[in-house]
């Protein structure tokens, strides 16, 4: 599996309140979350999410367990998220809603440069340079291939 998009560079410790603010959570309309994604970090980011691969610093997705955070990214058109480390609840939530992500320590980021990555082979290529990344486990890949945990779970019954 090889995924690609254009880079959006973000810093470390991006919390789920910054990904989607608490004031937008009381709805089931996913478009609301996509519209307001990263609003409190930088209001222009939402318009750059279509086809984006987010290259972030350590501890991406820390804080609240809100699943609206990965759903907002996915709904806004994000292809995947690459970071040296993730907050664990965000990591599980992303896989569960079908948003690919990978841990990669050394990736260099230039905004809008092409990025490719392979969750099963375990590499990220950004700005013309390829880095080793932690491949996802078999079960996680399976969940992603089904489009999320709900679909995976139904396929197992």
């Amino acid at each position, binding site marked *: 599996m090889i995924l690609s998009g254009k880079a959006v560079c973000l810093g470390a410790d991006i919390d789920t309140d910054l990904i989607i603010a608490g004031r937008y959570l009381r709805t089931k309309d996913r478009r609301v979350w996509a519209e307001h994604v990263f609003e409190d970090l930088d209001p222009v980011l939402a318009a750059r999410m279509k086809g984006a691969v987010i290259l972030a610093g350590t501890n991406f997705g820390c804080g609240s367990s809100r699943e609206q955070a990965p759903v907002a990214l996915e709904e806004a058109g994000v292809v995947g998220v690459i970071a040296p480390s993730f907050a664990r609840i965000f990591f599980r939530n992303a896989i569960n809603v079908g948003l690919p992500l990978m841990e990669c320590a050394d990736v260099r980021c230039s905004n809008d440069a092409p990025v490719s990555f392979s969750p099963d082979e375990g590499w990220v290529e950004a700005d013309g340079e390829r880095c080793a990344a932690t491949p996802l486990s078999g079960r996680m890949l399976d969940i992603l291939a089904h489009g999320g945990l709900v679909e995976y*779970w139904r396929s197992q019954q």
Partner: protein
Amino acid sequence: MSTLAERILGAPAGSFVDRPVDRAFVHDGTGVLTLEAWRRMERDRLACPERLSILFDHIAPANNSTTAALQAELRTFAAEQGVHFSDVGSGICHQLMSEGIVRPGEVVVGADSHTCTLGAFGAFATGVGATDMAAIWASGSTWFRVPATIGVHLDGTLRGAAEAKDIALDYVRRLGMDGGTYMALEFLGERARDLSMESRLTIANMAVETGAKAGLFYADDTTVRFLADYGIQTAPQAIEAGSYRREITLDLDDLVPLVAAPHRVDNARPVEDFEGIALDEVFVGTCTNGRYGDLARVAAIVAGSKVAVRTIVVPASRSVLLAAARSGVLSTLIAAGCTIGPPGCGPCLGAHMGVLGEGEVGLSTANRNFRNRMGVGAEYYLCSPATAAASALAGAITAPEGTA
């Protein structure tokens, strides 16, 4: 030798295990998406309704008709399925689970990041998202990667005005916001055993602020006595030295009241560094510091005086509110000019009941001071109830009496 997390999950660190959960809960915020995911799984009945709870706390009572409609759906679902349900005004999910539900050695999963609070009982308690929770509703179990553990030794004796919240802020600043990622924290030493259950809940609550999956205290005589008051018979857990990934020691002798400055929880320094910063609001409450002892300490400090800024006090549960009403703590707070909110999360998540305006500065006993969380364009500092009370009287950040 095993850590407490390894013993409860029954496998060494690094293993993946599928484990039935003993207790699982959602609140009004995460319950909505959980219910949606569960319906998409196309099951008629919950796998283990007797182990599940739906507890309204985040926006309780509802702030508008959209929220009210979402809550009505969950309320109906809980009644149809016969699930343990607590409605608006009952209190914060973690607090209610601590009032005679969670027991030592259990695996507890909540759709809220601060589920780690319940590690205070020697349970393995951790937060998950909505879809993971839906799979638990459907199957009764979930998967875990058994975490490596950081041993946090508590050494020395708390002195002066320092309290449990300062211990929590101290380990968060020592480990940093991702120092515990993918791991568990285990609180160790004689001083850990001296702490009350309320203090342990405060300390375990903030484990997730280091990225940790869980924060555990061994169940001991204090735990056993606490649960006996709820009619639950349990036994202490045998303490054995585990194999820790890392160990740190907190010296309580030298600990002073701390304040975490915006916008990072690990940005904590002695309260003196911030003295004189003018405040627009003080908030006392949350799953970190909304318990009876917290309210009582605030009341003791403000008794007979008037607060100089708007001060919002939100008890963590109806039991806490009732105890405060019966003991006179509540009337002391009201007489001092505090505003009392209904039991629940209050303004902590930035949705209602005390959210700050742009440019305003607040001081809170909560656990997160993330940018814009409790008000767009506002700044929130975090502290203990004692520091909050002293600061409320002064209208500016102030060290509580007895600060060394």
